[in-house]
């Protein structure tokens, strides 16, 4: 296992190896990272105004998410968490759905047809095995779709991580495991989550390749994820990728990181900002200027604003929204329960 994470793009914007993508694609992904950052800021602000339920910011993790998600085909599967909005969005999950979900509305969970992204996993750990079953099912049906799953350092302690890794390796499914090691699981630092040297090391016990990558480096993430996805698609099995990154913000808007970590650490990581790194690179390459930055921020910001407006305009869910999605056809016991509810409500109003 390498002890230094793979890096292609240094924090100062210089490259130490050939980038896996050209300038156009880099600009596209930079723009996606910017969009993610804007979304993150917007949601944090909305939550403060009480317009969203608790929100989990991902500032600092944009390169890990965008770099990995960028290598997927549109029909590939993604199974991610509450902190992976940028990855999900790049794979086709609309801002509208993400925001609607955060207002506390099940309708956010309905990905558009053709977008094979599961609703974000709120439980920690259980979802990775789903990506194993998905890839397995695709193979059985003769399709070469890959399933990529995102999770945190904390999630690697759950028993379900272990079962997912083992099943993926035993059946050789086309599953790519992306662990965003952002240093913390709420208040528990990575060193007390596990005493393994790296999370990538955990692949050894499953006979699976494990990659250790600078998760704030868009190019390194892209390169490693692309190789893993290619292997997976060729039928050569799963890969674990540890993206070393940092959660710059609080765990959620309800969290106070001051209770458990010192600001210096967060500041140090802010200096390794994944967006700024790509910006410097693009600027050096003559492919970035302030006007473009302003333009993409305006355009992406407008799209997010529009999604917020649309989400907030959606009518309150009714009783049918509670009962009518449990089964394909509403069974007799739920009919009965709707009657009971209506009887109570009738009486209450009367």
């Amino acid at each position, binding site marked *: 296992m390498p002890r230094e994470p793979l890096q292609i793009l240094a924090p100062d914007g210089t490259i130490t190896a050939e980038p896996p993508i050209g300038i156009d694609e880099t600009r596209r992904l930079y723009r996606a990272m910017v969009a993610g950052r804007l979304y993150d800021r917007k949601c944090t602000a909305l939550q403060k105004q009480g317009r969203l339920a608790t929100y989990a910011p991902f500032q600092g993790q944009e390169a890990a998410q965008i770099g990995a998600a960028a290598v997927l085909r549109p029909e590939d599967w993604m199974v991610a968490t509450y902190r992976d909005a940028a990855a999900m969005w790049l794979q086709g999950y609309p801002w509208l759905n993400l925001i609607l979900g955060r207002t506390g509305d*099940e*309708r956010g*969970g*309905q*990905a558009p*047809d053709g977008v094979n992204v*599961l*609703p974000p996993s709120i*439980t920690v750990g*259980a*979802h990775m*095995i*789903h*990506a*194993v*079953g*998905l*890839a*397995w*099912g*695709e193979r*059985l*049906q003769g399709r070469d779709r890959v*399933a990529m799953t995102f999770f945190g350092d904390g999630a690697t302690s759950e*028993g*379900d991580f272990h*079962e*997912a890794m*083992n*099943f993926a390796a*035993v059946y050789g499914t086309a599953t790519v495991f992306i662990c965003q090691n952002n240093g913390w699981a709420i208040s528990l630092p990575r060193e007390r989550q596990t005493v393994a040297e790296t999370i990538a090391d955990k692949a050894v016990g499953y006979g699976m390749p494990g990659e250790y990558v600078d998760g704030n480096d868009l190019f390194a993430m892209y390169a490693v994820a692309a190789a893993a996805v290619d292997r997976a698609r060729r039928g050569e099995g799963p890969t674990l990728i540890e993206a070393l990154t940092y959660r710059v913000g609080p765990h959620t808007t309800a969290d106070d990181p001051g209770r458990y970590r010192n600001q210096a650490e967060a500041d140090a990581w802010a200096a390794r900002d994944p967006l700024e790194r790509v910006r410097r690179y693009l600027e050096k390459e003559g492919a970035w200027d302030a006007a473009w930055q302003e333009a993409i921020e305006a355009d992406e910001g407008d799209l997010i604003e529009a999604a917020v407006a649309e989400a907030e305009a959606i009518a309150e869910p009714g009783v049918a929204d509670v009962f009518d*999605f*449990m*089964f*394909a056809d509403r*069974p*007799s*016991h*739920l009919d*009965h329960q709707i009657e009971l509810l209506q009887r109570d409500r009738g009486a209450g109003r009367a």
Partner: protein
Amino acid sequence: MPEVTIAQALNMALDEALATDPTVLILGEDVGATGGVFRITDGLQHRHGAERVVDTPVAESGIVGAAFGLAITGMRPVAEIQFLGFAYPAYDQLVSHVSRIRNRSRHRFTAPLVVRIPYGGGIGAAEHHSESSEAILAHTPGLKVVVASRPYDAKGLLAAAIADPDPVIFLEPIRSYRAVKEEIPDQPYLVPIGEAGIEREGSDVTLVGYGAAMRDVRRAADRLAEGGVAAEVIDLRTLVPLDAATLVSSVTKTGRAVIVQEGHRTAGFAAEVVARLQEDALYSLLAPIERVTGWDTVVPLRRGEQHYIPDADRIVAAARRTLEA
């Protein structure tokens, strides 16, 4: 029509499903070459291949979680958990994901899978091999819960479970696997989920049971008949969705009911049946509804099992109490 055991009927249903639907796949511990510890999948791997009848590592959460992913892609996985006592590690997958993905995604993603689980005591097995914790599954919204008590239903209900667009927990009564036999069609057929079966009509008292307990319920009904008491015998067959209409109309007629459940007493499924009956048939009741249940104890091991498992004696005693009340 061949006379078969429940075990054989289940094997037939699985065989037919594999033969007719290419998306059906069986997975579980030892389901392949051995055919499962109860031999329910006997011969199926040989006939349908190791890609479709898949031995898994020893990891129940993994089995159910993988089946969940498979189902979302359009497969129809039939997972086997070796005993109900080993399903608990998979409970989180069932309650948090399998039962909810349809609701969470507003019908966009669905999990049409079946989890087959042998349950119940009476064979003197080791600890954890005699569980009847069906109430826990019945208390989990989004799961259908089916329990067969005889070969005809076993085959037809399992076929219906596999065809169902939603997740179905299919409980198999261990001690009846080879003890109950009947002639059944060797062609495919369905027994609808959600319908109780009235096995025997009677006007004096309604006996309600399901699964392994049905043998004792039938014995009790025979003994009551010898004493001149006409018991109506209802096999629930499906716990969720519960066929309340059939129960209510029977008890409205008889005015008396005994609910038999092998699971622990407190907050067991019998309590639900009682609650439902008193809601809709209180004014017909001539006596308190009796619950004949297992106790709030660990299921005793082989030498003490008879103190726990409801038997015909206890059912008869309860029925007589309703008649004497």
